[in-house]
């Protein structure tokens, strides 16, 4: 039996009649790094705000440490949030910002001093106590915001796109630092982002959301390798997503060709989505693959080439370490193992592809 720190039971929420979250169920284990991932407007931030107490769900309960906190005010919850826009108090210096929560809890002066020192060391900003937060860079401000939350020793830390406003290089550094901080303090992290790469590198568990519905939940690897539907496949990394028809077990028809796969249990003649990752699409001599097509473009991406190939009805993307020339006729092949077959979504609402 695992140790649950947070349970969301059947949460729904709408704003002005527009459904933002629908019947959401989520369980978070203690000491986990869990990421809510999805495009903007998918309900991930609202979910976080419901956990933080800034929104009340229309239906459903929030259970935290075995206690129902659905109706508890934000200041009564032993969890803290790191906001996207940092939201530091501009009328206080760095030390006063960090001490804010501790002073409210009436901790001793010595204790607060110790905590400030410890927290600033943790976020690599030793000696910044007296600085004016508004004079710091975005990255530094976000570190202060993290320090300000962590000193309260919350059981759960909510991070709402905390790195969204930082540039790429700084974002990568901060990702690494966040993982270090997480290990050091041993707090459960719930992290919200729309950046799939960030989610894949940092999380123990990823929850992919779209239109207020959880699309898939699992480890980075399972989500990347076995996306459950076309939305997830498309959102997590680039993919070739093609309409197909199941002919029999382990046999699918794509663009009128019979292609061998490993999936079983679909209905005969059932329309399906077929997902093939670009790195799994092999380029061979014309006539020796499933499909023949003409090379449209070749882009050098550093570690590999990204090749676009046009067959009769579809434009394929392939990633390969060697590249054909633009205009060449080539054959396309994929191993049965590397084909992912997915049911078509039942309704428009259950899955909406990203624009």
């Amino acid at each position: 039996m695992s140790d649950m720190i947070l349970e969301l039971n059947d949460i729904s929420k709408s704003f002005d009649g527009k459904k933002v979250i629908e019947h959401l169920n989520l369980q978070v284990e203690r000491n986990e790094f869990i990421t809510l991932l999805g495009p903007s407007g998918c309900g991930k931030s609202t979910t976080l705000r419901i956990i933080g107490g800034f929104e009340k769900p229309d239906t459903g309960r929030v259970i935290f440490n075995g206690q129902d906190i659905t109706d508890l005010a934000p200041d009564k919850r032993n969890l803290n949030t790191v906001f996207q826009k940092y939201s530091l108090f501009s009328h206080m210096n760095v030390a006063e910002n960090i001490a804010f929560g501790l002073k409210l809890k009436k901790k001793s002066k010595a204790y607060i001093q110790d905590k400030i020192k410890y927290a600033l060391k943790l976020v690599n900003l030793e000696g910044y106590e007296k600085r004016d937060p508004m004079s710091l860079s975005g990255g530094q401000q976000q570190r202060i915001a993290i320090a300000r939350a962590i000193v309260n020793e919350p059981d759960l830390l909510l991070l709402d796109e905390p790195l969204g406003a930082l540039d790429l290089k700084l974002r990568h550094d901060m990702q690494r630092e966040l993982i270090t901080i997480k290990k050091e303090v041993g707090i459960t992290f719930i992290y919200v982002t729309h950046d799939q790469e960030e989610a894949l590198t940092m999380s123990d568990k990823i929850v992919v959301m779209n239109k207020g519905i959880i699309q898939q939940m699992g480890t980075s690897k399972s989500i990347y390798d076995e996306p459950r539907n076309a939305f997830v496949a498309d959102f997590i990394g680039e993919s070739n997503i093609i309409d197909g028809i199941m002919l029999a077990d382990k046999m699918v028809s794509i663009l009128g060709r019979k292609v061998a796969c490993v999936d079983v249990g679909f209905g005969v003649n059932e329309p399906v989505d077929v997902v093939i990752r670009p790195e799994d699409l092999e380029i061979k001599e014309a006539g020796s693959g499933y499909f023949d097509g003409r090379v449209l473009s070749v882009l050098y991406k550093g570690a590999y080439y990204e090749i676009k190939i046009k067959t009769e009805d579809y434009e394929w993307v392939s990633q390969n370490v060697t590249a054909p020339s633009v205009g060449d006729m080539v054959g396309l092949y994929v191993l049965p193992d590397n084909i992912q077959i997915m049911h078509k979504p039942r309704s428009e609402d259950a899955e909406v592809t990203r624009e």
Partner: protein
Amino acid sequence: MVKLKKALCKGYLALIIAFLYLPILMLIVLSFNNSRSRVTWGGFTLDWYVKLFSDSRILDALETTLALGFGSAAIATIIGTLGAVGIQAMKKRNYQVVMAVTNIPILNAEIVTGIALMLWFVRFMPLGFTSVLISHVTFNIPYVILSVMPKLRQLNLSVYEAARDLGANNSYAFVKIILPQIWSGILSGFFMALTMSMDDFVITYFTKGAGVNTLSTMIYGEIRKGIKPQMYALSTLIFVVIFVILLITNFLPDREKQQAEQSLRERKAY
């Protein structure tokens, strides 16, 4: 409990607003009062409105007040806008000195400003319409500068540079690029200046000399004799006109803005 608290809050605000509008309501009522007495109701009449238009002294004062208001606001808006654009380009030290001086007419007591201007004018010119106009421009300019300055600070200068880069000369770029971006600040500066000028009494009182009367100074002179009810009628008319203008200008941009927000929200939803 929460509902009760909300109701109390709104009730409090309503009280404050009632406090601010009670005297205005009183004056509007008096403008329809068929009695010269200020305390008894003698029945409804439109007489004062009719008589107003044959009272040449009041109409003269109105003309002077309007000429002063629009004239000084227009001059102050031009000088102030150009001034703000120039001040913003100054070095930090000069900038601070000029901005400090700009605050003088706002921070200084009106009576001191009025007397200082009067003492200065009598050295080289007779007091009259011109001296009042100059005085009004003087206390109006800071309001223009203070409403244009924030817009200038938000100004997207790269657009101006892009325009120069694309071949626009300085003044063309100013008119086509800078002016539209600070337009709302200029307009509110003009309106602020107009409001201040129309409402001013003290500075006009000291700088007007004999023979010139604005509505304010005329009313002040009539306090002991008793105010002519035509004055209530005129004030009510001005108030209603401004009320309607403000209502229209406050609601039209509002709708535009709402539409912009609506489309933004729709875009965000994707």
